[in-house]
């Protein structure tokens, strides 16, 4: 991990692989939180 850094560039965007992985994971977790069914619980009318 302390070795030479890897970066990807696209136009003025310049991002490290570490940051890219974290951002992709955050988006993935957000998508899963939205798409996975809400944990069960007995529904009740009030």
């Amino acid at each position, binding site marked *: *991990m*302390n*070795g030479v*850094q*890897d*970066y990807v560039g696209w136009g*003025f*965007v*310049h*991002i*490290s*692989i*570490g*940051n890219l*992985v*974290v*951002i992709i994971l*955050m988006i993935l977790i957000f998508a899963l939180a*939205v*798409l996975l*069914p*809400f*944990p069960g*619980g*007995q*529904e*009740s*009318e*009030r």
Partner: protein
Amino acid sequence: MSRKHAYYRGVRMAPYDLVKEFLVALGVVTLLVVILAAVLSSPDVRPLTLQSIATTDPQSYVQTALNELDGSSGISDYGPPYNNGTGAVQYIGPISIQQLIGVHIPVSTAQDFVLGPLAQVAPTNPSWKVALDRYNAAPARQQTAWTNAYNTALGKATESGPHLSVARCACGPVTTMMKAMLALGQRGAMDGLLLTNRQFYQTDYTRPLLFTADPDNNVVNARATSLHLLGSQWGVMNETGNYPGQAWLWLYSLFYQIPPYTTAWAANTDALAILSITVLSLVLLFLPWIPGLNRLPRYLGVHRLIWRDWYREEKQKAARTAKHNAEVEA
């Protein structure tokens, strides 16, 4: 019926154990932190100290010291909070917040970075004391002539490892003073001599950091460039090595990459980037009260995805009702 009950009337409720969720999340995160810390460790890049700079690049170190002495360094003319210079003063239109706040960490580069540290150690070396006394007693014009002559000679100096060879010059006591500065730097004494002694435990590293990171210092600039830490390299987002950095600072860092922040506004980028982030943060804070923007969640419809079961059931219920009504009418 209370207002609360009236408000929630007809809304289905689902019991949910928030404490259980909190404890489960805490357990999972703690486990992840322990495992990841054990496997990945933490960034471990050797720090840049004045000693390491003086040893690996003595010419750059002495040039920085000389610039601090003759008042031509980046810090000498920086401006608030260190002095009344204008070199790094930034404006938002006609207003400079930097100047409004004023000088509250006064730094006199010649005194704080060169004359002061030398005065502390001069009693241990008679030749240093003689040189320092001679410099302090000389008129300003003579001091400038000596430092200018040394600057010219230093430009032609040669390095051999930690050794610096500066040709003989009409530099008066400055030659001895700069040799003393280099010796103190290479022995590791400067890192301590620049600390501010206002309390028992030393936590104020302002002066060592200013001396180390002075724009004249090529070593720091080169190291920052190689580690992708410059502002123009999205530096505030990056960490050393392959560790992820501060990805959440992407928006703040973005302003340092795009025009007009990098072109017409380049002289005031920091102030204008802070202003832009402040405006955007206020927009986010007051989003519920901003007409048009406060309708955004409705248009985006993320809540329809989260509560899709409820919307599906409502649709089916409506379809059944419609079918039932049609059958009754028939």
